[in-house]
């Protein structure tokens, strides 16, 4: 059991965990405002990566292409909210979940038709070989992933807690009717949360595409992992999902390294399961308070 291996597993775990945290962030934003688990979140991630690829292919300078991709995917989030979530009105949360599942299938299928079934790669943000660190190696892109995740977490945290929009979002989340009384339109807030989640999702898709490529069906797996990260984090707080993502990433990586790569997902889930059950009393109390 060499030290460099442990370091390598941790580095990988943190990189992968950051990715899960970005995806989970979108779940958290939408859930905390609307109470909806948005199963189309993984598709926003996919759209980010694929759109960026197409825009770069059009010959746009890379930074412009990436930003434009985020804007376009944000628009998709807005359109999705207006056409699928808003017409459902005050349907039960399970109904809304099915709508987002339908939306996810639809978006994925359209993407499969438009971009084809093949995976595509984005160029890394900075070139150069991996950096050596205690015998382990870190890719420059991993540092980008971790860095952008941290920045995104801070920005979203500040947005939710320090700005008027954020306070309105929170108010709508806590009590829809009371918020309406002071002039906060819950439907508008739902729209804003989808836009924000689509934007963070798109950023996630863009930062990971140089590492693990983008393809029309990447949203299934990432959405699932992101949801687990978000649920671990309690589905409400920005830092919770960050920790949830890192926990999941590290659990997977260490399980693959020390136990078995075939069972790594199962081991990670059992670990998370245990955490859920140990914390169940507190979680249930939190859930009731939120209801």
């Amino acid at each position, binding site marked *: 059991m060499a030290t460099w291996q442990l370091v*390598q597993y941790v580095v990988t775990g943190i990189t992968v965990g950051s990715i899960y945290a970005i995806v989970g962030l979108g779940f958290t934003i939408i859930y905390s405002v609307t109470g909806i688990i948005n199963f189309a979140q993984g598709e926003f991630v996919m759209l980010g990566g694929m759109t960026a690829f197409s825009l770069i292919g059009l010959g746009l300078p890379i930074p412009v292409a990436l930003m434009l991709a985020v804007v376009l995917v944000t628009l998709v989030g807005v359109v999705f909210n207006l056409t699928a979530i808003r017409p459902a009105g005050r349907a039960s949360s399970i109904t809304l979940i099915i709508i987002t599942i339908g939306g996810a299938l639809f978006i994925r299928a359209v993407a499969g038709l438009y971009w084809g079934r093949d995976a595509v790669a984005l160029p890394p943000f900075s070139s150069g070989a*991996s950096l050596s660190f205690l015998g382990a190696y870190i890719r420059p892109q991993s540092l980008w992933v971790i860095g952008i995740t941290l920045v995104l977490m801070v920005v979203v945290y500040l947005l939710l807690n320090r700005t008027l929009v954020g306070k309105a979002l929170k108010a709508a989340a806590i009590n829809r009717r009371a918020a309406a009384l002071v002039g906060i339109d819950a439907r508008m807030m739902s729209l804003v949360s989808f836009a924000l989640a689509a934007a963070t999702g798109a950023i996630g898709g863009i930062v990971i595409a140089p590492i693990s490529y983008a393809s029309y069906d990447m949203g299934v797996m*990432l959405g699932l992992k992101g949801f687990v990260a978000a649920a671990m984090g309690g589905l409400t707080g920005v830092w919770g999902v960050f920790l949830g993502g890192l926990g999941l990433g590290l659990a997977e990586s260490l399980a*693959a390294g020390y136990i078995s790569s*075939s069972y790594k997902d199962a081991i990670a889930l059992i670990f998370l399961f245990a955490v859920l059950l140990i914390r169940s009393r507190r979680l249930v109390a939190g859930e009731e308070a939120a209801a």
Partner: protein
Amino acid sequence: MKKVVFIALALILVIGIMPFTACGGAEEEYKIGAVLGITGFNSALGEPEKQTLEMLEEAINDAGGINGKNVKIIIYDTETDSTTCFTATKRLIEQDNVLAIIGASSSGVTMAILDTVTDAEVPLVSLAASDQIIKPVEERYWIFKTPQTNSMVVARVYDYLSDQGISEVALITASDGFGALGLEELKDVASTWGMTIVADESFDPDDTDMTTQLAVIKGKNPEAVICWGTNKGSAVIADNMKDLAMEMPLVMSHGIANRDFIDLAGEAANGVIFPAGKLLVTEQLPDDDPQKDVLLAYKADFEYLYGEGNVDTFGGHAWDAFTLITDAIQSLVDEGKEVDRAGIRDKLESAELVGISGIFNMSSTDHLGLTPDCLVLVEIVDGEWTLAEE
């Protein structure tokens, strides 16, 4: 209470009209069915297969069909799901009344329909790798396949490695059906080739990062790494090996035999060696290679329609299946016999074809009919497929 009435009514409506939508009509064309994994895990295989079949259908009909009668290809997407493939196959047999079926794209999905086609007595030409599909041949009377089997491919890999004086290998295989079948074969015959497996790791093709598994392998210090998977996961592995500064030879499977792998892995693809059908290195084949003309023609046709550099061996398997079946129909027509399922099956069993995947010599004991020399070793050099020197 009304609900129940409605369910009954709705069911009457939905199910009641189903039989009437099925109108057989006179058989004015030769119908061939196909069940392909166009979406889902196998989409990298199903897509070129579908494109190839559509191309061939158009070509044969433009040339006047088979003795003036058109060929119609009916393709259903299996979504790489055995339940969907199962009902789609029933549909091809019972409703579309096809003469023969091509598919499915992967071994697991094919297994789900073996009983169905056998019971219905419809010839099936599978596009999947596993030997199990056509063995034991007595039970697989109606089943044929066109891709080279896993045992041939694995033998080719081990043969190459032992020539290089390598005996300690690490395996990293995909957790999907393709990887699982490869792993089985790799482990089964390792000892007969004098190979020692020092590490046996697996990866999920959808995983974002495989450095952990590779770090485990690196710790075991193998002489070579064998990776068994399709494009996306395999490209991540090639890339991650460079990241971890792992210099040992990387040998992969025929699952990466298409352009996408090189596009994805970029620099990291260079130096990767894998066994594949001759299609990838058509131009480099000696002129006396009996397959060369067929390969050149298919490559030109496919790339004319679907873009330069897009041809791959999976589409080639579909070419072989289509040609085997239409040749069988042609010879039945030529001999003045009735064109039916049993007739096609008998012709398939004695088929000889210079195809894309190799030279087929089918027999009642061999429903594939390929020999191991249909595979060549390909090395990726400067982003191009190169026939490896042996």
